[in-house]
């Protein structure tokens, strides 16, 4: 009995934080529907979708977030595999993976300006090698944004997949190989299916975070590369149109959840199937 009461007491701070979060979320959603007279209406949503540039911003946000997620997966998956299979100590490798997080995102993004610019290190190097005559356009476009976002979010993908790999039994691969399967078949039929829960978790995390990116698109994007997170920031802190910002935030959340919720269901189904199979 004493333990039960103590547990409830210990949960009070968490309940307070959750409560405040839900109240502010509710206020945000209400603000997007409430007109100036306080009567709920869909005006703000209609006005959002009536503006061609806002729809472009939304579509671009989802596209860039998707691209960032795929590239993070393409890079993160083999890195996670290499770390999991590393025979020595993994601590230093983990530190290297999370090293980008130790630097402010603004500083990191400015660093990319130095590397990716027309007069940046990469173009200077490629020019010196004779590979390019004119600088590659690596900044002020979607390419620059995706590079910057992948740098920021790839560690999340790596850690999500690594967590699964570290629990993967080596004996399963050995059993597959001993039964005559080659490396590609072993990967396709054993390793990849077993790593899916981590892949899906990493995908959800990276996609969600990429949809809300503000700083990287601001600094590395071009004139026509606005993303919705940046637009919301502008509405809140420069135009002070809180209802419009709230509307954009609800739309962004809804479109992100439209991707993430099915992925969540898929992850549960995959995990269930894997448990059943074992």
């Amino acid at each position, binding site marked *: 009995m004493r333990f039960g009461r103590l547990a409830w007491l210990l949960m009070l701070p968490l309940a307070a934080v959750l409560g405040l979060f839900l109240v502010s979320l509710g206020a945000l959603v209400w603000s997007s529907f409430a007109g100036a007279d306080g009567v709920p209406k869909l005006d703000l949503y209609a006005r959002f979708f009536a503006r061609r540039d806002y729809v472009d911003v939304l579509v671009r946000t989802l596209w860039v977030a998707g691209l960032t997620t795929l590239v993070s997966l393409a890079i993160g998956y083999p890195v996670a595999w290499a770390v999991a299979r590393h025979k020595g100590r993994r601590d230093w490798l983990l530190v290297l993976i999370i090293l980008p997080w130790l630097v402010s995102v603004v500083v990191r993004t*400015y660093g990319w*300006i*130095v590397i990716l610019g*027309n007069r940046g290190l990469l173009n200077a190097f490629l020019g010196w090698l004779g590979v390019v005559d004119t600088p590659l356009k690596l900044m002020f476009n979607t390419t620059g944004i995706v590079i910057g976002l992948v740098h920021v979010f790839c560690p999340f993908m790596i850690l999500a997949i690594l967590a699964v790999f570290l629990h993967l039994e080596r004996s399963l691969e050995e059993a597959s190989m001993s039964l005559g399967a080659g490396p590609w078949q072993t990967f396709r039929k054993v390793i990849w299916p077993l790593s899916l829960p981590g892949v899906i978790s990493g995908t959800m995390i990276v996609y969600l975070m990429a949809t809300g990116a503000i700083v990287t698109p601001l600094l590395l994007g071009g004139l026509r590369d606005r993303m919705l997170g940046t637009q919301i920031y*502008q509405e*809140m802190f420069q135009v002070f149109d809180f209802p419009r910002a709230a509307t954009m935030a609800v739309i962004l959340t809804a479109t992100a959840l439209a991707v993430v919720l099915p992925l969540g269901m898929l992850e549960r189904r995959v995990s269930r199937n894997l448990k059943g199979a074992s």
Partner: protein
Amino acid sequence: MTRRNLLAATATLAATLALATPALAQGRGEIVMGAWGGGTSATWRTGVGEPFTARTGMPVRINEWPDPEPQLRAQAANPQYNMAIATYFNAANLHRDGLLETFDAKDIPALATVPDAYVLKAPDGKVIGIPAYFQYYGIAVNTDLAKTSDFQSWNDLAAAKWKGKLSVTRPIYASTYDLVMFAKIAGGDEKNIAPGLPLMKALGANAVNVYNSMAQLNTLLTRGEVTAAPYYVTRVWGLKEQGAKNVDFVLPKEGGLMLPYLLIVPKNAKHRDAYMAFLNFQLEPQQQLKMLDLSGYLPFNSTAQLEKKDVDRIGMPLKDLLARLYQPDWEVVARTHKERIDLVEQLLSR
């Protein structure tokens, strides 16, 4: 006394002093000021804050913020600041929403040294904020990539050869500064901005990005990632003082946009005696000239005499410069702010 007791007593004393010091300061009066970061806050701290404290004994605390309006609006019910440096359109917006103190001109004797054209007034004749200093808006050029003679007119920003080579400021400022100036040179003004839209659109077509901070454009200009952009003269002067040899400023032949700044006081701010004294103090010629030395902001006090080095830096006497600068009605600009931001956003996105 045991060591534990001694430590506890020391900690209690330190905590009491830490809590009491602000209370003591509040009793004496103090200035708590918000200012933009970087050079602006340093200018106010060194140029005005420290001398004010030396003369009056009242402390001056300066906190940095990216923009005055969000903070002052958020704290409207209980203002923590009693002073802020702001643009005229910030002040007009905040005043319209009843968030600022206003003053009788006679309560600010130093205001007599400021030409009336630069004093922002409410419809009832009260003064909304106290002019502090001004700078102006023209074109910054990377001289490794272009010549200053390539941008003698604002219309040169539309030239096809600059496609993908220029930068433009955020819509909040592009709609307020660039669009108004473009309208003026095309026969319109801050009330009628339609004549300025073609040049705004052309600038957007040539721009490779929107710069979101002065630090960002400073980096892009000095590194040669952009060739030119409409920009603030004090920023270019600052870059030159830091050793940049490849950036220069052009005041186009049609003139530039005057960018005045003023001190505003949130409604119901604390320590009236302190802030009234500060408002007068910063207009004294000595303080005005010190701010000019520190950051290039030009004085509003007409009795503050510029030195030869300042005249050389401007390239002309102050009187001639003022004749070439356009000062719009900032109240009109503030009133139409939101719809013009939307307009510029849509224009730049095409």
